């Protein structure tokens, strides 16, 4: 039972990251700076929602209480979501979205590259599918960091400012709980502490190429693993859950 509970929490965390960031990106639909970019952001959003569907379905099965992907996506309260805080931050301007996406993509790419070898067959299968897509996401966000950082004076200053403001949310990506110890010990997922230096190195390389400065590590926000969110999260859920709350059980 202990194992299933840990697996439930683990799949839920991964599923929540994808669901919430996917939802945020979907807000760009019809608002992208140009048509191609509008489509690109929505494509990434769609991929992430696809990952969340597979992961939340699995989480529901591991929990064993009969909850479906929809139950988990639409009918939980704020404190029951465990997505990384950076996923729920508002889109801001395009540079903010790109800085957030890039830092998440680097993390996600490192994580899912490890999950491909998970001893849990379902997780490994989902990861093998997702990693192909995540590679494209990272390439896309890296291109834009280079283009904006090494672009005009204004684009450089604005995305530098985005990185500076978002930096305090990056520590939370690597937060681990007791449930993770079981996950690591059983070879289901990697120790995030080991990914951290690799993440920092990759981010630093791209920022250097983009003529940007890596922000100093200072105070880091935390709390997502225990369901403590930013003040933005309630508003996001209000929109995400509206239909199921207003018309319980409605289906397409």
């Amino acid at each position, binding site marked *: 039972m202990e194992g299933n509970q840990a697996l439930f929490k683990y799949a839920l965390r991964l599923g929540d990251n994808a669901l919430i960031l996917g939802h945020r990106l979907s807000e760009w639909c019809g608002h992208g700076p140009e048509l*191609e*970019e509008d*489509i*690109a952001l929505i*494509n*990434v959003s*769609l*991929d*992430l*929602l*696809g*990952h969340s*569907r*597979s992961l939340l379905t699995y989480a529901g099965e591991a929990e064993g209480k009969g909850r479906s992907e929809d139950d988990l996506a639409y009918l939980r309260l704020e404190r029951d979501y465990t997505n990384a805080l950076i996923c729920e931050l508002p889109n801001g301007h395009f540079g903010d979205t790109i800085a957030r996406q890039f830092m998440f993509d680097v993390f996600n790419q490192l994580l899912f590259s490890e999950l491909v070898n998970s001893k849990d*067959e379902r997780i*490994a*299968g*989902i990861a*093998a*599918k*997702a990693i*192909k*897509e995540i*590679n*494209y996401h990272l*390439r*896309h966000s*890296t291109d834009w960091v280079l283009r904006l950082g090494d672009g005009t004076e204004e684009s450089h200053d604005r995305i530098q400012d985005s990185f500076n403001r978002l930096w305090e949310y990056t520590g939370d990506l690597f937060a681990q709980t007791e449930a993770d110890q079981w996950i690591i010990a059983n070879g289901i997922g990697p120790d995030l502490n080991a990914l951290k230096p690799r993440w920092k190195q990759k981010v630093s390389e791209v920022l250097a190429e983009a003529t940007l400065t890596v922000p100093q590590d200072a105070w880091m926000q935390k709390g997502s693993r225990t369901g403590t969110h930013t003040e933005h999260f309630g508003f996001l859920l209000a929109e995400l859950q509206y239909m199921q709350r207003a018309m319980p059980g409605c289906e397409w």
Partner: protein
Amino acid sequence: MIRSISEEKLWDILDEVKDPEIPVLSLVDLGVVRKAEIIDDKTCITITPTYSGCPAMKVMEEDIRMRLMMEGYKNVEVNTVLSPAWTTDWITEKGRAALQEYGIAPPEQATSDKNALLGHPKQVTCPNCKSRNTAMLSQFGSTPCKALYKCQDCLEPFDYFKCI
């Protein structure tokens, strides 16, 4: 794999079910149909998505079910699996030709696409005039499985079915 006559017939029927977004390509040509079996009185079809979030999966499932029921199969079950993950290598030769004919550049060989993931833009042949002088406009096209390119010679924009 050796298929029985009844299963062979099943594959032939499935080859007539088209991709809802690329109507020249059958689901068999696309490589999303992984298994077609008759187990006792049940017809079991296994499909796999091209991309995790592919919104066409539900439609494909319904189309397969409808088609088989029209052919007289009563107890039809369509299952979706993620593993092994779909790859563009599963698109058949017939499928590649159909894509090209339709104006969508078929995926280039998977091995050369690894370079693309390392940051080098991929060389793609224009499906209209066959020029290699093409440029990528966006890695994401009209659907998740496609990228947007333009031809520098005939100046036509076109979709490229990207390798995964």
